């Protein structure tokens, strides 16, 4: 009985395995394939045996599903830190959460002298419709005073479901207080922040996940242009601590600053199949000097834009060596209605550099903080346990060449940005870029 049932389990595994087409394997490799299958079957036998043993002898009743969930999770996470298995329940919950609609007022706020100050009002948003303006203070939410609350608590009080009304007390710049009822709406926050910094344009991209990013970047560039009298003397693109996001967004955004050509490529195990992603023809701001700001938390898509503009000599990259997450995960649905998050490809910059484990090395190394042991040490992808291997040697940051702020540099001032502004304004930027060109060619 025992032997038979174990045999059945093993058999069913083997059948299931061979029913999955092993495509991607060329025909001439079949002998090799057969040997691999035997090995795999042996391993699956072992698994089935252990599975039955655990299920029947564990101290408590356990469901087959929980056991398999645990096993799949273990198998996937043994590959690298970004691969995982999402059990059916979690997967569905996640999808549901993504659909659930929260509403907001359409404002961005900060805390100033204990009050909530409106920093930005989304045009046509619910707050804008009620005449709330930038610079207004919110002193009470639903009659409850804001004073003494943390920003998080105050903001939490304003969140709710879209369509629900909320009462806020607004103190305007002219010192008048009024009560306003705002109907919450589903809000898509801004994808970018932009402003003029010391006569040059500055764009901060928080992540590449926003569906409206491409449009927002374009709008931002145009607004900066008109603010500076139609001509941009320089542009800083800040992707520091940007964790990455969608491939289409980064290709579009990078494409604004390149006149066609490759942005990045990706390839999986079979290196003969390489996907190349290209920029559209026509630049948004040709000839305008660009500096890209990165740090050790700039990852994935953020490294793609930095790498592309660096390799194509379009921008000077400034800051610290980036995180080094140069792998692509694909979400695959499986029979269980759960899903697989599996690393399937690596990213490469236009010159063919792999990003995985290496990151992008800035052209000009600038530290945010004064020199110290902790400033030097940064946590990156290659520090993650079990991270996917790198294909080349890591080039370490040259601390002798790194620019550090002095000890007296104030904490709330952005040293890296100040250096970026200096560089983007420098008349030498062009020659710096072309010097880099030769370097890359001979590397």
């Amino acid at each position, binding site marked *: 009985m025992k032997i038979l049932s174990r045999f059945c389990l093993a058999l069913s595994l083997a059948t299931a395995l061979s029913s999955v087409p092993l495509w991607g394997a060329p025909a001439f490799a079949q002998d090799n394939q057969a040997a691999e299958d035997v090995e795999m079957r042996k391993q699956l036998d072992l698994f089935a045996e252990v*599975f039955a043993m655990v299920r029947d002898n564990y101290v408590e009743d356990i469901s087959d599903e929980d056991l398999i969930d645990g096993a799949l999770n273990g198998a996937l996470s043994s590959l690298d830190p970004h691969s995982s298995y999402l059990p059916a329940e979690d997967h569905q919950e996640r999808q549901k959460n993504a659909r659930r609609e929260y509403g907001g007022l359409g404002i961005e706020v900060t805390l100033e002298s204990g009050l909530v100050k409106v920093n930005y009002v989304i045009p046509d948003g619910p707050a804008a419709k009620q005449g709330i303006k930038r610079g207004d203070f919110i002193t009470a939410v639903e009659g409850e005073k804001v004073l003494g609350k943390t920003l998080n608590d105050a903001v939490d009080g304003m969140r709710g479901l879209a369509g629900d009304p909320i009462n806020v007390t607004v103190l305007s710049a002219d010192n008048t207080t009024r009560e306003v009822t705002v109907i919450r709406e589903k809000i898509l926050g801004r994808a970018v922040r932009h402003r003029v910094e010391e006569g040059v344009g500055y764009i901060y991209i928080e992540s590449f996940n926003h569906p409206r990013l491409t449009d927002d970047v374009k709008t931002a560039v145009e607004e900066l242009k008109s603010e500076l009298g139609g001509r941009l003397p320089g542009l800083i693109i800040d992707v520091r601590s940007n964790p990455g996001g969608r491939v289409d967004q980064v290709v579009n955004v990078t494409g604004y600053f390149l006149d066609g050509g490759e942005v990045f490529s990706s390839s999986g195990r079979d290196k003969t199949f390489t996907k190349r992603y290209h920029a559209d023809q026509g630049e948004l701001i040709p000839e305008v000097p660009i500096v890209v700001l990165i740090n050790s938390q700039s990852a994935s898509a953020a490294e793609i834009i930095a790498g592309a503009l660096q390799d194509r000599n379009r921008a000077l990259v400034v800051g610290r060596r980036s995180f080094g997450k140069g792998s692509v995960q694909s979400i695959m649905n499986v029979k269980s209605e759960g899903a697989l998050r599996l690393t399937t490809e690596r990213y490469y910059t236009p010159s063919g550099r792999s990003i995985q484990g290496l990151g992008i090395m800035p052209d000009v190394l600038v530290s945010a903080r004064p020199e110290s042991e902790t400033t030097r040490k940064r946590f990156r992808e290659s520090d993650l346990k*079990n991270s996917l291997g790198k294909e080349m040697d890591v080039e370490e940051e040259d601390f002798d060449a790194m620019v550090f702020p002095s000890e007296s540099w104030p904490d709330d001032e952005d040293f890296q940005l100040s250096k970026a502004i200096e560089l983007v304004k420098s008349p030498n930027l062009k020659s710096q870029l072309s010097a880099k060109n030769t370097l890359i060619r001979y590397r």
Partner: protein
Amino acid sequence: MKYILPTLGAIAATGLFAFSSVSYTANAKDTSSRVDTFKQLELFADVLARVRTEYVVDVDDAELIEGALNGMLQSLDPHSSYINPEAFKRMQTTTSGEYGGLGMEVTTESGVVKVVAPIDDSPAKDAGIKAGDYITEIDGESILGVSLNEAVDRMRGKPGEPITITVIRGEEDPLEFDLVRAVIKSRKTKWEVKDGVGYLRIPQFNEQTYETLEGAVKALKKEFNGNIPGIVLDLRGNPGGLLDQSVKVSSAFLDGGEVVSTRGRRADDVTRLSAKNGELVKGVPLVVLIDGASASASEIVAGAVQDRNRGIVLGMTSFGKGSVQAVVPLRGGRDGALRLTTQRYYTPSGRSIQGTGITPDISVAASADDGKDNHRLSESDLPNSIQNELATEDAEVEIKIEYPPEGFDEDGDYQLDRAIQILKDGSYKTKLAELQ
């Protein structure tokens, strides 16, 4: 170095194979559950096939399955695990041959290696490593997220080899300790005469524990001319060990009768383990000392003494490791082995030790801050630990804890002082009678 879990390999493994055929008949339920099993295994094979074809680099099948087995076993509880062939081989040399270690019992908490207790006279204890320390680095390399097996492996090595470990203790900055691996001897039961009573210290339950206890009792008898006025049995910081030794040790103080029962999932899967007749120290007053680092076999002894009203248990609530792991070699160990939780321990009155531990009859703290933060590591703090199925509201009853008086000598042992006091001031008999 061993884990906190008892290595019950031989005993439990046989048991496992003996009842696995029973389990199959018991589990051959309806077809629907078998269909579900089928579906689940198919899913597993399906996912593996996709990983093999689509992962970014070539995948080693054996590694993938090892990951799956690890994931499956670890999802059960903190003490179940898969031991790969290499580690299993090493484990066997560990129990038989000589190896160098640091001499501490470790466990994991949210993926971080945590010290349960350093062993007496070991490099770890001598260096000043304390119970509750988190080990974050070995030789400068982070071990965060590393499995317990692997962390233990890395701490082992040749005797005489140096090792540096980084420890996080409370809010302090990380501390670095330079240690030299040493042969961790099977530690024996020690005896002493303290303030006119007999003191027995069992540091762990290994093959020699009972034998050396017998010798120690003999020596004490000689010392007291055959008339021991009282015994303190110190099980503090004792992480457990072999189950059969805990039964034998209990026999020294009990004249036959049940010591512990182990129960599996099915109601009929009960094994009762009894003390041999003829206790060694009949009628001698007994106080058993326990603390938060007394686990497993220690809790069995304390629980039996308490339930059978043989003595007074004094100290702090014990660890609460009341589950039994079977070590099952796969294909003779060529495919490694499983460490699987198969049973729970119950005291003679039927209390489960798992999660709750043994609550002392008299709660006495070692120091002013002992137990005050109420967050000493215990089994129920471990992520994913098996809960005590008998736990009731009663477990929440507030326990009055005696603390050492202000100005008590830091090097003194308040718990031991109190134990000796009870044996000598005549309160023992009334207290014991009250507990009955």
